[in-house]
Protein backbone atom coordinates (compact mmCIF):
# COMPACT_ATOMS: atom_id res chain seq x y z
CA UNK A 1 0.00 0.00 0.00
CA UNK A 2 2.91 2.29 -0.60
CA UNK A 3 0.79 4.32 -2.97
CA UNK A 4 -1.48 5.31 -0.11
CA UNK A 5 1.24 6.58 2.16
CA UNK A 6 0.70 10.13 0.93
CA UNK A 7 -2.56 10.35 2.83
CA UNK A 8 -3.18 11.16 6.37
CA UNK A 9 -4.90 8.33 8.13
CA UNK A 10 -8.46 9.40 8.77
CA UNK A 11 -10.65 8.30 11.63
CA UNK A 12 -12.64 6.01 9.34
CA UNK A 13 -9.45 4.27 8.36
CA UNK A 14 -8.69 3.46 11.94
CA UNK A 15 -12.26 2.28 12.50
CA UNK A 16 -12.05 -0.02 9.50
CA UNK A 17 -8.72 -1.37 10.63
CA UNK A 18 -10.13 -1.96 14.10
CA UNK A 19 -13.12 -3.80 12.67
CA UNK A 20 -10.77 -6.03 10.71
CA UNK A 21 -12.24 -4.89 7.41
CA UNK A 22 -9.08 -3.46 6.01
CA UNK A 23 -7.52 -6.20 3.96
CA UNK A 24 -4.34 -5.82 1.99
CA UNK A 25 -5.53 -4.37 -1.29
CA UNK A 26 -4.59 -6.08 -4.52
CA UNK A 27 -4.82 -3.61 -7.38
CA UNK A 28 -4.03 -6.38 -9.84
CA UNK A 29 -7.33 -8.07 -9.12
CA UNK A 30 -9.73 -5.39 -7.96
CA UNK A 31 -10.87 -2.59 -10.14
CA UNK A 32 -13.20 -0.90 -7.66
CA UNK A 33 -13.34 -1.49 -3.92
CA UNK A 34 -15.91 0.27 -1.79
CA UNK A 35 -15.81 -0.08 1.99
CA UNK A 36 -18.54 1.15 4.35
CA UNK A 37 -19.56 3.96 2.03
CA UNK A 38 -21.99 6.58 3.28
CA UNK A 39 -22.89 9.64 1.26
CA UNK A 40 -25.01 12.32 2.87
CA UNK A 41 -26.38 15.40 1.18
CA UNK A 42 -27.34 18.41 3.19
CA UNK A 43 -30.23 20.14 1.58
CA UNK A 44 -31.91 23.23 2.91
CA UNK A 45 -35.31 22.57 4.51
CA UNK A 46 -36.38 25.94 3.23
CA UNK A 47 -35.43 26.71 -0.38
CA UNK A 48 -34.51 30.24 0.62
CA UNK A 49 -31.95 29.04 3.14
CA UNK A 50 -29.04 30.00 0.90
CA UNK A 51 -29.86 33.68 0.94
CA UNK A 52 -28.39 36.41 3.11
CA UNK A 53 -31.77 37.49 4.47
CA UNK A 54 -32.58 33.98 5.59
CA UNK A 55 -29.21 33.57 7.28
CA UNK A 56 -29.56 36.89 9.05
CA UNK A 57 -33.04 36.01 10.33
CA UNK A 58 -31.82 32.65 11.56
CA UNK A 59 -28.84 34.09 13.31
CA UNK A 60 -31.05 36.63 15.05
CA UNK A 61 -33.46 33.89 16.14
CA UNK A 62 -30.69 31.55 17.24
CA UNK A 63 -29.07 34.19 19.42
CA UNK A 64 -32.49 34.87 20.96
CA UNK A 65 -33.00 31.20 21.78
CA UNK A 66 -29.45 30.10 22.62
CA UNK A 67 -30.27 26.43 22.51
CA UNK A 68 -28.38 23.42 21.18
CA UNK A 69 -29.38 23.09 17.55
CA UNK A 70 -29.79 19.93 15.48
CA UNK A 71 -29.22 19.82 11.72
CA UNK A 72 -32.88 20.58 11.13
CA UNK A 73 -32.84 23.57 13.47
CA UNK A 74 -29.93 24.91 11.48
CA UNK A 75 -32.14 24.79 8.43
CA UNK A 76 -30.78 21.62 6.86
CA UNK A 77 -32.23 18.23 6.24
CA UNK A 78 -29.80 15.38 5.84
CA UNK A 79 -30.47 13.07 2.93
CA UNK A 80 -28.75 9.73 3.47
CA UNK A 81 -28.36 8.79 -0.18
CA UNK A 82 -25.96 5.89 0.34
CA UNK A 83 -25.87 4.15 3.71
CA UNK A 84 -23.13 1.62 4.17
CA UNK A 85 -22.32 -0.01 0.85
CA UNK A 86 -19.48 -2.52 0.46
CA UNK A 87 -18.55 -3.56 -3.03
CA UNK A 88 -15.72 -5.37 -4.76
CA UNK A 89 -15.52 -5.30 -8.53
CA UNK A 90 -12.92 -7.34 -10.37
CA UNK A 91 -11.24 -6.17 -13.56
CA UNK A 92 -13.26 -7.05 -16.64
CA UNK A 93 -16.61 -7.07 -14.86
CA UNK A 94 -19.75 -5.43 -16.19
CA UNK A 95 -21.69 -4.59 -13.06
CA UNK A 96 -25.30 -3.57 -13.56
CA UNK A 97 -26.95 -1.45 -10.87
CA UNK A 98 -30.73 -1.48 -10.46
CA UNK A 99 -33.12 0.02 -7.98
CA UNK A 100 -36.11 2.31 -7.69
CA UNK A 101 -35.74 6.06 -8.21
CA UNK A 102 -33.91 7.57 -5.28
CA UNK A 103 -32.24 4.30 -4.31
CA UNK A 104 -28.80 5.94 -4.42
CA UNK A 105 -27.56 4.50 -7.72
CA UNK A 106 -26.41 7.77 -9.26
CA UNK A 107 -24.93 8.92 -5.97
CA UNK A 108 -22.90 5.72 -5.76
CA UNK A 109 -21.65 6.28 -9.30
CA UNK A 110 -20.69 9.89 -8.56
CA UNK A 111 -18.89 8.83 -5.41
CA UNK A 112 -16.91 6.21 -7.35
CA UNK A 113 -16.08 8.87 -9.95
CA UNK A 114 -14.71 11.11 -7.18
CA UNK A 115 -17.33 13.79 -7.72
CA UNK A 116 -19.22 13.44 -4.45
CA UNK A 117 -17.14 13.18 -1.30
CA UNK A 118 -17.93 10.19 0.94
CA UNK A 119 -19.17 11.24 4.34
CA UNK A 120 -17.87 7.94 5.69
CA UNK A 121 -15.97 5.05 4.24
CA UNK A 122 -13.46 4.62 1.52
CA UNK A 123 -13.40 4.05 -2.23
CA UNK A 124 -10.46 2.69 -4.14
CA UNK A 125 -10.42 2.74 -7.93
CA UNK A 126 -7.57 1.17 -9.85
CA UNK A 127 -7.46 2.58 -13.33
CA UNK A 128 -8.38 5.62 -15.37
CA UNK A 129 -11.99 6.62 -14.75
CA UNK A 130 -14.27 7.78 -17.53
CA UNK A 131 -17.82 8.91 -16.82
CA UNK A 132 -20.98 8.95 -18.87
CA UNK A 133 -23.48 10.24 -16.37
CA UNK A 134 -27.13 11.10 -16.69
CA UNK A 135 -26.67 14.75 -17.52
CA UNK A 136 -24.30 14.09 -20.40
CA UNK A 137 -21.21 15.88 -21.64
CA UNK A 138 -21.11 19.31 -23.18
CA UNK A 139 -19.78 22.53 -21.83
CA UNK A 140 -21.42 25.05 -24.05
CA UNK A 141 -24.33 24.53 -26.42
CA UNK A 142 -23.03 27.38 -28.57
CA UNK A 143 -19.87 25.45 -29.34
CA UNK A 144 -19.62 22.73 -31.94
CA UNK A 145 -19.44 19.03 -31.15
CA UNK A 146 -15.77 19.07 -32.14
CA UNK A 147 -14.93 21.87 -29.67
CA UNK A 148 -16.86 20.16 -26.90
CA UNK A 149 -14.98 16.93 -27.47
CA UNK A 150 -11.67 18.76 -27.15
CA UNK A 151 -12.82 20.57 -24.00
CA UNK A 152 -14.05 17.32 -22.48
CA UNK A 153 -10.72 15.64 -23.09
CA UNK A 154 -8.75 18.56 -21.68
CA UNK A 155 -10.92 18.69 -18.55
CA UNK A 156 -10.26 14.99 -18.07
CA UNK A 157 -6.56 15.83 -18.02
CA UNK A 158 -5.58 14.61 -21.49
CA UNK A 159 -3.12 16.42 -23.70
CA UNK A 160 -4.06 17.94 -27.03
CA UNK A 161 -2.10 15.25 -28.83
CA UNK A 162 -3.89 12.42 -27.04
CA UNK A 163 -7.21 13.99 -28.01
CA UNK A 164 -6.18 14.53 -31.62
CA UNK A 165 -5.18 10.86 -31.84
CA UNK A 166 -8.66 9.78 -30.75
CA UNK A 167 -10.72 12.45 -32.41
CA UNK A 168 -11.19 10.73 -35.77
CA UNK A 169 -12.31 7.52 -34.08
CA UNK A 170 -14.80 9.43 -31.93
CA UNK A 171 -16.24 11.31 -34.89
CA UNK A 172 -16.47 8.13 -36.96
CA UNK A 173 -18.17 6.20 -34.16
CA UNK A 174 -20.67 8.95 -33.33
CA UNK A 175 -21.44 9.19 -37.06
CA UNK A 176 -22.94 12.68 -36.85
CA UNK A 177 -21.95 13.75 -40.35
CA UNK A 178 -21.78 17.52 -40.74
CA UNK A 179 -23.41 18.03 -37.34
CA UNK A 180 -20.04 17.47 -35.66
CA UNK A 181 -19.09 21.05 -36.66
CA UNK A 182 -22.42 22.60 -35.74
CA UNK A 183 -23.34 24.11 -32.35
CA UNK A 184 -24.42 21.39 -29.94
CA UNK A 185 -27.69 23.17 -29.20
CA UNK A 186 -28.86 22.05 -32.65
CA UNK A 187 -28.43 18.36 -31.74
CA UNK A 188 -31.27 15.97 -31.07
CA UNK A 189 -31.09 14.10 -27.77
CA UNK A 190 -30.12 10.93 -29.63
CA UNK A 191 -27.22 12.67 -31.35
CA UNK A 192 -26.17 14.14 -28.04
CA UNK A 193 -26.19 10.70 -26.46
CA UNK A 194 -24.22 9.21 -29.34
CA UNK A 195 -21.46 11.79 -29.08
CA UNK A 196 -21.33 11.48 -25.28
CA UNK A 197 -21.04 7.71 -25.52
CA UNK A 198 -18.37 7.93 -28.20
CA UNK A 199 -16.28 10.33 -26.12
CA UNK A 200 -16.43 8.36 -22.88
CA UNK A 201 -15.66 5.00 -24.50
CA UNK A 202 -12.82 6.24 -26.69
CA UNK A 203 -10.90 8.02 -23.94
CA UNK A 204 -9.19 4.73 -23.18
CA UNK A 205 -11.09 4.13 -19.94
CA UNK A 206 -10.11 1.42 -17.51
CA UNK A 207 -13.17 2.01 -15.37
CA UNK A 208 -16.23 3.28 -17.24
CA UNK A 209 -19.24 4.59 -15.35
CA UNK A 210 -22.47 4.75 -17.37
CA UNK A 211 -25.63 6.17 -15.83
CA UNK A 212 -28.81 5.63 -17.86
CA UNK A 213 -27.12 6.85 -20.99
CA UNK A 214 -28.11 4.14 -23.44
CA UNK A 215 -31.81 4.90 -23.44
CA UNK A 216 -31.85 7.90 -25.80
CA UNK A 217 -30.53 6.17 -28.88
CA UNK A 218 -32.25 4.28 -31.69
CA UNK A 219 -31.96 0.54 -32.29
CA UNK A 220 -28.81 0.91 -34.39
CA UNK A 221 -27.08 2.95 -31.71
CA UNK A 222 -28.05 0.43 -29.04
CA UNK A 223 -26.57 -2.43 -31.05
CA UNK A 224 -23.38 -0.43 -31.67
CA UNK A 225 -23.01 0.53 -28.03
CA UNK A 226 -23.52 -3.06 -26.87
CA UNK A 227 -20.76 -4.11 -29.23
CA UNK A 228 -18.50 -1.35 -27.94
CA UNK A 229 -19.11 -2.41 -24.34
CA UNK A 230 -18.32 -6.00 -25.31
CA UNK A 231 -15.10 -4.79 -26.92
CA UNK A 232 -14.05 -2.94 -23.77
CA UNK A 233 -14.83 -5.92 -21.57
CA UNK A 234 -12.70 -8.14 -23.80
CA UNK A 235 -9.81 -5.82 -22.94
CA UNK A 236 -10.46 -6.40 -19.22
CA UNK A 237 -11.97 -2.93 -18.77
CA UNK A 238 -14.49 -2.58 -15.97
CA UNK A 239 -17.92 -1.10 -16.51
CA UNK A 240 -20.49 0.04 -13.97
CA UNK A 241 -23.84 0.45 -15.64
CA UNK A 242 -26.96 1.99 -14.12
CA UNK A 243 -30.07 1.14 -16.07
CA UNK A 244 -33.79 0.50 -15.74
CA UNK A 245 -33.82 -1.70 -18.83
CA UNK A 246 -33.72 -5.24 -17.48
CA UNK A 247 -33.17 -6.68 -20.95
CA UNK A 248 -30.03 -4.57 -21.43
CA UNK A 249 -28.68 -5.59 -18.06
CA UNK A 250 -29.32 -9.29 -18.66
CA UNK A 251 -27.58 -9.10 -21.99
CA UNK A 252 -24.53 -7.08 -20.95
CA UNK A 253 -23.79 -7.68 -17.30
CA UNK A 254 -21.83 -10.35 -15.52
CA UNK A 255 -23.20 -9.24 -12.15
CA UNK A 256 -26.08 -7.08 -10.97
CA UNK A 257 -26.33 -5.03 -7.79
CA UNK A 258 -29.77 -4.12 -6.48
CA UNK A 259 -29.91 -1.03 -4.34
CA UNK A 260 -32.78 0.04 -2.16
CA UNK A 261 -32.84 3.18 -0.02
CA UNK A 262 -29.10 3.60 -0.06
CA UNK A 263 -28.27 0.01 0.80
CA UNK A 264 -27.15 -2.96 -1.25
CA UNK A 265 -30.00 -5.48 -1.14
CA UNK A 266 -28.66 -8.16 -3.46
CA UNK A 267 -25.62 -8.77 -5.60
CA UNK A 268 -25.21 -11.67 -7.95
CA UNK A 269 -26.35 -13.38 -11.13
CA UNK A 270 -28.11 -10.91 -13.47
CA UNK A 271 -31.09 -13.22 -14.21
CA UNK A 272 -31.76 -13.96 -10.56
CA UNK A 273 -31.29 -10.45 -9.17
CA UNK A 274 -33.35 -8.74 -11.87
CA UNK A 275 -36.13 -11.33 -11.49
CA UNK A 276 -36.13 -10.82 -7.75
CA UNK A 277 -36.21 -7.05 -8.24
CA UNK A 278 -39.11 -7.23 -10.67
CA UNK A 279 -41.04 -9.48 -8.28
CA UNK A 280 -40.42 -7.03 -5.49
CA UNK A 281 -41.57 -4.08 -7.58
CA UNK A 282 -44.83 -5.82 -8.46
CA UNK A 283 -45.52 -6.77 -4.86
CA UNK A 284 -44.43 -3.38 -3.65
CA UNK A 285 -43.80 -4.46 -0.09
CA UNK A 286 -41.29 -2.91 2.21
CA UNK A 287 -38.37 -5.33 2.27
CA UNK A 288 -38.01 -5.08 6.01
CA UNK A 289 -35.84 -8.16 6.13
CA UNK A 290 -33.72 -7.11 3.19
CA UNK A 291 -33.05 -3.66 4.61
CA UNK A 292 -30.79 -5.23 7.16
CA UNK A 293 -28.52 -6.69 4.49
Amino acid at each position, binding site marked *: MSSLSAFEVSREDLDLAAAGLEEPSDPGRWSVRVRGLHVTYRTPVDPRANTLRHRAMRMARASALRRGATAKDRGFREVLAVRGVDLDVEHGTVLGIIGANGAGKSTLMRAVAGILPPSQGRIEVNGRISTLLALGVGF*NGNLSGRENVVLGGLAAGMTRRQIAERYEQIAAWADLGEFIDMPMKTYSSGMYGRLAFAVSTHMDPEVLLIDEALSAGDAKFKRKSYDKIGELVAQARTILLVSHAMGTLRELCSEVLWMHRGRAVALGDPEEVTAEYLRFQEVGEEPVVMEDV
Partner: protein
Amino acid sequence: MTVSSEAAVPGSAGGARQQHVFEAQRAGMPNPRVYLEELWRRRQFVVEMARSTLKAQNYTTLFGQLWLVLNPLLTGFVYYLLVDILSGGKHAATYFPQLLAGLFLFNFLAGCMSQGAGSVIGSSRLIMNSSFPRLLLPITQIVIAFFRFLPSLLVFFVVHFVKHEHFTWASWLAVPAFVCVALFASGLSFICATAQVYFRDFANVLPYLTRIWLFLSPVLWQLETQLNRSGPKAELIAMNPLSPMLGMWGDALVEGKAGRPEWLLQGACWGIGTFLLGTVLFMWREREFSVRL
Protein backbone atom coordinates in the same frame (compact mmCIF):
# COMPACT_ATOMS: atom_id res chain seq x y z
CA MET B 1 -12.77 17.43 -3.88
CA THR B 2 -11.80 14.21 -2.30
CA VAL B 3 -8.25 13.10 -2.22
CA SER B 4 -7.20 11.62 -5.47
CA SER B 5 -3.86 10.09 -5.97
CA GLU B 6 -2.18 8.72 -8.95
CA ALA B 7 0.53 6.26 -8.38
CA ALA B 8 2.12 3.68 -10.54
CA VAL B 9 0.69 0.34 -9.55
CA PRO B 10 1.92 -2.79 -11.22
CA GLY B 11 -1.14 -3.82 -13.17
CA SER B 12 -1.87 -7.38 -14.21
CA ALA B 13 -1.92 -6.44 -17.86
CA GLY B 14 1.49 -4.83 -17.49
CA GLY B 15 2.21 -1.13 -17.47
CA ALA B 16 1.37 1.49 -14.87
CA ARG B 17 -2.17 1.98 -13.72
CA GLN B 18 -3.66 5.01 -12.06
CA GLN B 19 -4.95 4.57 -8.57
CA HIS B 20 -7.56 6.83 -7.04
CA VAL B 21 -8.51 6.77 -3.40
CA PHE B 22 -11.51 8.75 -2.20
CA GLU B 23 -12.15 8.86 1.49
CA ALA B 24 -13.97 10.86 4.06
CA GLN B 25 -11.77 13.55 5.48
CA ARG B 26 -12.16 15.62 8.57
CA ALA B 27 -9.97 18.41 7.33
CA GLY B 28 -11.27 19.97 4.15
CA MET B 29 -7.94 20.75 2.51
CA PRO B 30 -6.93 18.40 -0.28
CA ASN B 31 -3.28 17.44 -0.58
CA PRO B 32 -1.91 20.68 -2.11
CA ARG B 33 0.85 19.00 -4.12
CA VAL B 34 -1.47 16.49 -5.82
CA TYR B 35 -4.10 19.20 -6.28
CA LEU B 36 -1.77 21.67 -7.94
CA GLU B 37 -0.31 18.96 -10.17
CA GLU B 38 -3.79 18.01 -11.35
CA LEU B 39 -4.55 21.69 -11.91
CA TRP B 40 -1.38 22.23 -13.92
CA ARG B 41 -2.11 19.18 -16.07
CA ARG B 42 -5.32 20.87 -17.20
CA ARG B 43 -3.82 24.25 -18.08
CA GLN B 44 -4.72 23.83 -21.74
CA PHE B 45 -8.35 23.46 -20.76
CA VAL B 46 -8.30 27.01 -19.38
CA VAL B 47 -6.93 28.48 -22.60
CA GLU B 48 -9.25 26.47 -24.84
CA MET B 49 -12.32 27.19 -22.71
CA ALA B 50 -11.55 30.93 -22.60
CA ARG B 51 -10.93 31.08 -26.33
CA SER B 52 -14.08 29.23 -27.31
CA THR B 53 -16.27 31.07 -24.80
CA LEU B 54 -15.17 34.42 -26.19
CA LYS B 55 -15.72 33.15 -29.69
CA ALA B 56 -19.22 31.92 -28.92
CA GLN B 57 -20.19 35.06 -27.02
CA ASN B 58 -20.45 37.49 -29.90
CA TYR B 59 -21.48 34.91 -32.45
CA THR B 60 -24.90 36.37 -33.15
CA THR B 61 -24.14 40.10 -32.93
CA LEU B 62 -23.70 42.32 -35.97
CA PHE B 63 -20.25 43.60 -35.03
CA GLY B 64 -19.07 40.24 -33.71
CA GLN B 65 -15.62 40.32 -32.15
CA LEU B 66 -15.42 44.08 -32.74
CA TRP B 67 -17.46 44.42 -29.53
CA LEU B 68 -14.36 43.52 -27.58
CA VAL B 69 -12.98 46.92 -28.67
CA LEU B 70 -16.28 48.81 -28.85
CA ASN B 71 -17.30 47.95 -25.29
CA PRO B 72 -14.34 49.59 -23.53
CA LEU B 73 -14.46 52.57 -25.92
CA LEU B 74 -18.13 53.21 -25.15
CA THR B 75 -17.60 52.73 -21.41
CA GLY B 76 -14.76 55.25 -21.49
CA PHE B 77 -16.89 57.70 -23.39
CA VAL B 78 -19.81 57.38 -20.94
CA TYR B 79 -17.63 58.11 -17.92
CA TYR B 80 -15.83 60.92 -19.71
CA LEU B 81 -19.18 62.56 -20.40
CA LEU B 82 -20.24 62.13 -16.79
CA VAL B 83 -17.09 63.68 -15.34
CA ASP B 84 -17.01 66.40 -17.97
CA ILE B 85 -20.50 67.54 -16.99
CA LEU B 86 -19.79 67.34 -13.26
CA SER B 87 -16.51 69.24 -13.45
CA GLY B 88 -17.84 71.92 -15.80
CA GLY B 89 -15.41 70.98 -18.57
CA LYS B 90 -12.22 71.83 -16.64
CA HIS B 91 -9.59 69.10 -16.47
CA ALA B 92 -5.98 68.32 -17.34
CA ALA B 93 -4.95 67.54 -20.91
CA THR B 94 -4.06 63.97 -19.96
CA TYR B 95 -7.40 63.44 -18.29
CA PHE B 96 -8.97 61.19 -20.95
CA PRO B 97 -6.05 58.70 -21.19
CA GLN B 98 -5.77 58.76 -17.40
CA LEU B 99 -9.45 57.91 -17.11
CA LEU B 100 -9.23 55.12 -19.69
CA ALA B 101 -6.15 53.54 -18.08
CA GLY B 102 -7.77 53.36 -14.66
CA LEU B 103 -11.19 52.41 -15.91
CA PHE B 104 -9.99 49.50 -18.04
CA LEU B 105 -7.89 48.06 -15.24
CA PHE B 106 -10.77 48.45 -12.79
CA ASN B 107 -13.11 46.74 -15.27
CA PHE B 108 -10.69 43.82 -15.41
CA LEU B 109 -10.90 43.51 -11.63
CA ALA B 110 -14.70 43.87 -11.63
CA GLY B 111 -14.92 41.24 -14.40
CA CYS B 112 -12.82 38.78 -12.40
CA MET B 113 -15.13 39.26 -9.42
CA SER B 114 -18.50 39.02 -11.18
CA GLN B 115 -17.52 36.18 -13.54
CA GLY B 116 -15.78 34.42 -10.68
CA ALA B 117 -18.97 34.61 -8.63
CA GLY B 118 -20.87 32.84 -11.38
CA SER B 119 -18.16 30.33 -12.25
CA VAL B 120 -19.01 27.51 -9.84
CA ILE B 121 -22.78 27.96 -9.77
CA GLY B 122 -22.93 28.30 -13.54
CA SER B 123 -21.07 25.03 -14.11
CA SER B 124 -23.24 22.79 -11.97
CA ARG B 125 -23.62 20.24 -14.77
CA LEU B 126 -19.90 20.02 -15.28
CA ILE B 127 -19.31 19.69 -11.54
CA MET B 128 -21.87 16.91 -11.16
CA ASN B 129 -20.47 14.99 -14.13
CA SER B 130 -16.74 15.08 -13.83
CA SER B 131 -14.03 15.18 -11.26
CA PHE B 132 -11.34 17.83 -11.61
CA PRO B 133 -9.81 20.55 -9.42
CA ARG B 134 -12.64 23.05 -9.17
CA LEU B 135 -10.21 25.97 -9.04
CA LEU B 136 -10.08 25.50 -12.80
CA LEU B 137 -13.49 27.22 -13.10
CA PRO B 138 -12.70 30.64 -11.58
CA ILE B 139 -9.23 30.55 -13.18
CA THR B 140 -10.88 30.19 -16.59
CA GLN B 141 -13.03 33.23 -15.85
CA ILE B 142 -9.96 35.24 -14.86
CA VAL B 143 -8.31 34.34 -18.15
CA ILE B 144 -11.48 35.35 -20.02
CA ALA B 145 -11.48 38.69 -18.17
CA PHE B 146 -7.82 39.10 -19.15
CA PHE B 147 -8.59 38.36 -22.82
CA ARG B 148 -11.26 41.06 -22.65
CA PHE B 149 -8.81 43.45 -21.03
CA LEU B 150 -6.25 43.14 -23.85
CA PRO B 151 -8.33 44.83 -26.59
CA SER B 152 -9.20 47.62 -24.16
CA LEU B 153 -5.48 48.17 -23.66
CA LEU B 154 -5.23 48.59 -27.42
CA VAL B 155 -7.90 51.30 -27.26
CA PHE B 156 -5.90 53.03 -24.55
CA PHE B 157 -2.68 53.01 -26.58
CA VAL B 158 -4.43 54.47 -29.63
CA VAL B 159 -5.86 57.33 -27.54
CA HIS B 160 -2.50 57.78 -25.84
CA PHE B 161 -0.58 58.13 -29.11
CA VAL B 162 -3.18 60.39 -30.65
CA LYS B 163 -2.61 62.70 -27.67
CA HIS B 164 1.16 62.63 -28.47
CA GLU B 165 2.14 61.22 -25.13
CA HIS B 166 5.40 59.40 -24.93
CA PHE B 167 6.84 56.53 -22.96
CA THR B 168 9.80 56.55 -20.60
CA TRP B 169 11.64 53.89 -18.65
CA ALA B 170 9.33 54.52 -15.72
CA SER B 171 6.40 53.45 -17.89
CA TRP B 172 7.51 49.85 -17.38
CA LEU B 173 6.44 50.15 -13.75
CA ALA B 174 2.93 49.59 -15.09
CA VAL B 175 3.81 45.90 -15.44
CA PRO B 176 4.42 45.16 -11.74
CA ALA B 177 1.40 47.33 -10.93
CA PHE B 178 -0.69 45.14 -13.21
CA VAL B 179 0.69 41.96 -11.64
CA CYS B 180 -0.41 43.23 -8.22
CA VAL B 181 -3.92 43.93 -9.52
CA ALA B 182 -4.09 40.54 -11.27
CA LEU B 183 -3.12 38.68 -8.08
CA PHE B 184 -5.54 40.76 -6.03
CA ALA B 185 -8.33 40.21 -8.58
CA SER B 186 -7.67 36.44 -8.70
CA GLY B 187 -7.87 36.16 -4.93
CA LEU B 188 -11.13 38.13 -4.91
CA SER B 189 -12.47 35.99 -7.75
CA PHE B 190 -11.89 32.80 -5.74
CA ILE B 191 -13.52 34.37 -2.69
CA CYS B 192 -16.54 35.50 -4.76
CA ALA B 193 -16.90 32.02 -6.32
CA THR B 194 -16.97 30.43 -2.86
CA ALA B 195 -19.28 33.08 -1.40
CA GLN B 196 -21.81 32.62 -4.19
CA VAL B 197 -22.20 28.90 -3.40
CA TYR B 198 -23.21 29.69 0.16
CA PHE B 199 -25.09 32.97 -0.34
CA ARG B 200 -27.02 33.10 -3.57
CA ASP B 201 -27.83 36.79 -3.04
CA PHE B 202 -24.20 37.63 -3.43
CA ALA B 203 -24.29 38.13 -7.21
CA ASN B 204 -27.14 40.62 -6.81
CA VAL B 205 -25.23 42.77 -4.31
CA LEU B 206 -21.89 42.54 -6.11
CA PRO B 207 -22.55 45.08 -8.94
CA TYR B 208 -23.41 47.78 -6.40
CA LEU B 209 -20.36 47.02 -4.30
CA THR B 210 -18.05 47.24 -7.31
CA ARG B 211 -19.71 50.48 -8.45
CA ILE B 212 -19.14 52.09 -5.04
CA TRP B 213 -15.60 50.76 -5.02
CA LEU B 214 -15.01 52.36 -8.42
CA PHE B 215 -16.05 55.76 -7.07
CA LEU B 216 -13.76 55.34 -4.06
CA SER B 217 -10.81 54.42 -6.29
CA PRO B 218 -8.49 56.77 -8.16
CA VAL B 219 -10.13 56.20 -11.53
CA LEU B 220 -12.44 59.14 -12.11
CA TRP B 221 -10.13 61.40 -10.08
CA GLN B 222 -6.41 61.45 -9.42
CA LEU B 223 -4.85 59.92 -6.34
CA GLU B 224 -2.35 62.69 -5.59
CA THR B 225 -4.91 65.49 -5.55
CA GLN B 226 -7.18 63.65 -3.12
CA LEU B 227 -4.38 62.43 -0.85
CA ASN B 228 -3.09 65.96 -0.45
CA ARG B 229 -6.42 67.00 0.99
CA SER B 230 -7.03 66.03 4.59
CA GLY B 231 -10.17 64.74 6.26
CA PRO B 232 -11.92 61.40 6.64
CA LYS B 233 -12.45 60.98 2.89
CA ALA B 234 -8.71 61.14 2.22
CA GLU B 235 -8.12 58.54 4.93
CA LEU B 236 -10.75 56.24 3.48
CA ILE B 237 -9.15 56.58 0.05
CA ALA B 238 -5.72 55.82 1.52
CA MET B 239 -7.15 52.66 3.07
CA ASN B 240 -8.53 51.44 -0.25
CA PRO B 241 -6.24 48.58 -1.30
CA LEU B 242 -6.68 49.51 -4.94
CA SER B 243 -5.42 53.08 -4.47
CA PRO B 244 -1.68 52.30 -4.46
CA MET B 245 -1.95 49.83 -7.36
CA LEU B 246 -4.06 52.11 -9.56
CA GLY B 247 -1.93 55.13 -8.59
CA MET B 248 1.23 53.34 -9.70
CA TRP B 249 -0.43 52.10 -12.88
CA GLY B 250 -1.81 55.50 -13.93
CA ASP B 251 1.37 57.43 -13.16
CA ALA B 252 3.55 54.97 -15.05
CA LEU B 253 1.38 54.46 -18.08
CA VAL B 254 0.01 57.96 -18.67
CA GLU B 255 2.55 60.34 -17.14
CA GLY B 256 5.55 58.10 -17.70
CA LYS B 257 6.76 58.74 -14.16
CA ALA B 258 7.43 56.51 -11.17
CA GLY B 259 4.86 56.72 -8.39
CA ARG B 260 5.74 56.51 -4.73
CA PRO B 261 7.81 53.34 -4.06
CA GLU B 262 5.67 52.38 -1.05
CA TRP B 263 2.67 52.07 -3.39
CA LEU B 264 4.26 49.11 -5.10
CA LEU B 265 5.09 47.49 -1.77
CA GLN B 266 1.53 47.97 -0.48
CA GLY B 267 0.12 46.67 -3.74
CA ALA B 268 2.32 43.57 -3.62
CA CYS B 269 1.27 42.82 -0.03
CA TRP B 270 -2.42 43.16 -0.83
CA GLY B 271 -2.07 41.17 -4.05
CA ILE B 272 -0.16 38.20 -2.64
CA GLY B 273 -2.13 38.17 0.62
CA THR B 274 -5.53 38.16 -1.09
CA PHE B 275 -4.40 35.59 -3.64
CA LEU B 276 -3.26 33.15 -0.95
CA LEU B 277 -6.34 33.73 1.18
CA GLY B 278 -8.69 33.20 -1.77
CA THR B 279 -6.89 30.06 -2.96
CA VAL B 280 -6.89 28.44 0.47
CA LEU B 281 -10.52 29.38 1.14
CA PHE B 282 -11.67 27.92 -2.19
CA MET B 283 -9.66 24.70 -1.88
CA TRP B 284 -10.82 24.24 1.70
CA ARG B 285 -14.49 24.51 0.74
CA GLU B 286 -14.60 22.95 -2.72
CA ARG B 287 -15.36 19.39 -1.59
CA GLU B 288 -18.71 20.68 -0.44
CA PHE B 289 -19.63 22.36 -3.72
CA SER B 290 -21.04 19.22 -5.35
CA VAL B 291 -23.44 18.59 -2.46
CA ARG B 292 -24.57 22.21 -2.31
CA LEU B 293 -25.44 22.94 -5.91
